[in-house]
């Protein structure tokens, strides 16, 4: 009888522990537009490197405005598809000067990048130096990925896959308390 009781207690404890494990590791399953990243809510990693125009780009120079840091490649089809949305977002905020785009080109040649922007539009800075290391710093998994950096330098959201201008504006609106992102 006692042996049976001991076995039952042991089995009960094991079932309880497995239950706690399953609950603790369960995916929330909450469908959101933005992707999860340990970087969201933290200061954006430093981004200061050589740009396509021969100068340097430094994210710190953009303090006080929203910045969409976009990781892309001209050879990447989803990146080509999202590009018009980046152009739209950039143009919508150009007059107010409250938001900018910085692209980080991955495994691309400068001549391909120039041809791409000439054809597809867009005149924002494109980072071409140390891009593999910058991609690791931002936890990039698969192109295209974008990180929305708030005026205070904190990452407000990560978007995996192609962005939409309206989607980014919504995130900015929500983060600004509905005051309007442009």
């Amino acid at each position: 009888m006692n042996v049976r009781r001991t076995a039952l207690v042991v089995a009960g404890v094991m079932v309880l522990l497995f239950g706690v494990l399953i609950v603790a590791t369960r995916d929330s399953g909450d469908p959101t537009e933005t992707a999860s990243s340990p970087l969201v809510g933290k200061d954006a990693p430093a981004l200061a490197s050589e740009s396509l125009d021969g100068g340097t780009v430094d994210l710190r120079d953009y303090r006080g405005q929203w910045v969409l840091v976009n990781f892309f490649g001209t050879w990447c089809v989803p990146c080509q598809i999202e590009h018009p949305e980046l152009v739209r977002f950039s143009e919508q905020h150009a007059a107010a000067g409250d938001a900018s785009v910085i692209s980080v080109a991955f495994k691309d040649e400068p001549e391909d990048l120039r041809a791409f922007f000439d054809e597809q539009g867009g005149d924002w800075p494109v980072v071409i130096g140390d891009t593999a290391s910058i991609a690791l710093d931002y936890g990039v998994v698969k192109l295209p990925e974008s990180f929305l950096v708030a005026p205070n330098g904190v990452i407000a959201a990560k978007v995996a896959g192609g962005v939409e201008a309206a989607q980014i504006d919504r995130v900015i609106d929500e983060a600004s308390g509905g005051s309007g992102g442009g």
Partner: protein
Amino acid sequence: MAEQRSAVSTRRVAWALLALVVVAALIIGAFGRRSLEGEDRVQALSAQIKCVTCVGESVAGSQSDFAVNAREDIRTRVEAGDSDAEIFAYFSSRYDDVLLNPSASGAGALLWVLPVVVFGAAVAGAVVTVRQRGERGERPTADDRRLVAAAMAEWRQTGTAPEGSGDGG
């Protein structure tokens, strides 16, 4: 009686030695890893970081862009003198669930604690069972011992086994 006590004492010493060996093996296994240097250390660290663009591969075993970049980054950090903990912290601060060894805190701690708890419960169950069997009288009583002593004495005197004894009883 003295012989019985000696046997019990010997058994206890044997169990204590066994427990000591198990604990020593666990401690050596957990903390006694030899320190690795250079490329060996890069490989060992890479093997504990998940290739986030692959299926079921570590950074050490993949040739994907991510894995190649991650290995290069680890190499740079090793050469810069970063500790293993600092390198793991860098990757886990950038990528979700990137470490192949679960963390020893939060929900990941359960994965480390659970086997120990199950092992402890199994040992406790075994100890309780053995004690209960002892308490149920499965140990020889004083009467049993007297009967055995009488039988042994008879056997020594007559050279024949008493009735009822023999192989298989």
